[in-house]
């Protein structure tokens, strides 16, 4: 006997709209999964060709608000590659600081949602409360809790002075100790472990053949962190700030959560290292860039994995074509492996464990 179950598209357990059609047997084990999407498709690839390069800095930020620094960062890198511009070292450092701050907040949010779906409410509340420190920090330094609006072509909008560095270090000190304590709580929470260990397993062979990226890959024992294997920006200039990647081999929901903890702590370490030795100089080039006709491909490491931008220009003030491959695009395929053979009740949690960014994927 099989049972048909539909989840979505608007479900309080799903942060974004997606529609699952599942078939389950009498033990509520998923035997067939169909994922229907397209709810978040806003036609952004068409929209970017209608806006000029300055407007696109903000539009790319609105691809996804959780990795909202990575998109304009990568876009700006692509434009700079076409123009043949080398941006000041201080700007590279400032971009990396903003990027890692976003990474901490994004990963914390994913962990909060995970604990929410695992019905460990205390852990969820605590994770959200720790994340609030990062939100406050973003609001004080950059002026918005989600979209920081850091990047411009040839540099950054913001600068850090002694006082702001002090604020950052103070907040990080609080967050770091609290995150360490929180990780211990996750590791010791029987309720959480029972819900997550052995759930949604992605074996290494499948991970390799699907080509997953980011924490999903690292949870299955594959290190493909772009910051390490193809360093860019300040990671290329200063090898010592590259992250020491956390690798787990279990490939289950728990492993991916622990990889994210590793990412958070490394991100905090990177921010501290960068602001401790912030290069002197301007934060942007005075001269506005000339953007000739050309093509560029750039890749960076977003909180969810590898982000690739392809940009084609024709010498005008607007891109001729822009296309991006986002981490969730490949991680999404892995869902079918993870969900099949698992319980129906675990579906939303498994979905959350890849940290899906549907607004990136469907744009």
């Amino acid at each position, binding site marked *: 006997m099989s049972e048909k179950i539909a989840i979505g*598209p*608007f479900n*309080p357990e799903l*942060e*974004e*709209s997606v529609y699952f059609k599942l078939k389950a047997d009498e033990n509520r084990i998923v035997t067939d999964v169909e994922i229907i999407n*397209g*709810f*978040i*498709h*806003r*036609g*952004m690839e*068409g*929209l970017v060709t*209608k*806006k*000029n390069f*300055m*407007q*696109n*800095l*903000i*539009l790319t*930020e*609105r*691809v*996804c*608000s*959780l990795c*909202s620094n990575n998109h304009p960062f990568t876009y700006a890198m692509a434009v700079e590659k076409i123009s043949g511009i080398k941006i000041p070292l201080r700007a590279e450092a400032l971009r990396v600081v903003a990027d890692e701050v976003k990474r901490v907040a994004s990963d914390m*949010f994913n962990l*909060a*949602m995970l604990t*929410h779906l695992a019905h460990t409410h205390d852990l*969820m*509340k605590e994770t*959200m*409360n720790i*994340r*609030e420190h990062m*939100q406050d920090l973003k*609001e*004080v*330094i*950059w*002026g*918005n*809790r*989600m*979209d920081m*609006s850091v990047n*411009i072509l040839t540099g950054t*909008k913001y600068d850090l002075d002694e006082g702001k560095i002090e604020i950052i270090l103070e907040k990080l000190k609080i967050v770091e100790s609290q995150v360490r304590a929180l990780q211990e709580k996750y590791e010791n929470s029987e309720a959480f472990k029972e819900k997550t260990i052995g759930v949604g397993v992605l074996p290494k062979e499948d991970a390799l053949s699907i080509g997953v990226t980011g924490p999903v890959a690292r949870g299955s024992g594959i290190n493909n962190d772009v910051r390490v294997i193809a360093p860019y920006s300040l990671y290329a200039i200063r090898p010592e700030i590259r992250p020491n990647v956390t690798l787990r081999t279990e490939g289950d929901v728990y492993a991916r959560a622990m990889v994210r903890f590793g990412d958070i702590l490394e991100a905090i370490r990177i921010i501290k290292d960068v602001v401790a030795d912030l290069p002197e100089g301007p934060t942007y080039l005075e001269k506005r860039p000339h953007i000739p006709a050309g093509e560029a491909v750039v890749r960076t490491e977003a909180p969810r994995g590898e982000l690739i931008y392809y940009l084609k220009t024709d010498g005008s003030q607007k891109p001729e074509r822009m296309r991006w491959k986002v981490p969730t695009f490949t991680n999404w395929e892995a869902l079918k492996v993870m969900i099949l053979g698992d319980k129906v009740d675990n579906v939303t949690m498994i979905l959350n464990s890849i940290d899906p*960014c549907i*607004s990136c994927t469907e744009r």
Partner: protein
Amino acid sequence: MSKEVVPKLFRVNTGSCNGCDVEFVATAFVDKFELESLGVELVEHINEANVLVVTGPLTARSEPFLKKYVAQMRKPYAVVGIGTCSVTSGIFRDSYAIEGPTDKIVDVDINVAGCPPRPESIAEGVAKGIKVLQQKLNGEATPKTLDMIFSDFTAPASFRGKIDLNEDMCTACRTCETVCPSGAIEISAVEGGFIHKVWHNSCCFCGNCAYFCPTGAIFNTNSFDTAKTQDEKYSEVNVGHINYETCSCCGENYMPPSRGLLGKAYVHDDVSKLNDAICPACRKEANFKRMYG
């Protein structure tokens, strides 16, 4: 006699970039935003809900689903649109895939602009939505405006809130209009000068205009008071008048140079003492006479 209302919230994401949804979750689960104090309950099914929270610009794909969901709600209910996208479709307005904004499909009661709005604004919007719901339950008419409910929330000085314009500094150069990604700024020529409009409900609060403005005339205030009723939707505009001056010499109208720009050009001089109220053509003539006449 007024009936007691238990607000039951259901959130629908119609294509948002996550920002508003994440902030909504933060509002709901972090104590300091006081959503709990309103007695709000988050429900699992749409047919239990009486407050609908909508985020996102309403994509073509989610439009029929939103209709279906709204049809399942029992009346009366209140609709709170969260984020600039749900109010005006914001930055995505020109896209082929957008059917929004939300008020084309549903009768929205409260709009909360912001990209994303601060949790304080979201809490404010939800609180106002509950107030509207209460009035509907009692058979009263929906109010045109509502007072602030949470008055003790503050924002740091650095917060990028509603845009304001310093009219004396502006020269109507249209830089802000060019860099604004969501088309929230409009400068139109009228008799006697220009009118500079900023639509707070289209603005995505990115601060591009303030950053690129050559004279520093346009700037972000830290005001986050954006939770407004539907009746106020089209009146949320910041209007600035940039007037021509009449030349004291020939009587022609001309755009006076901004004090901000003059200050940059004449670093060592006191700008206020410069020869003003004279149009560029007359100035040229006077200078020519002075040097060669």
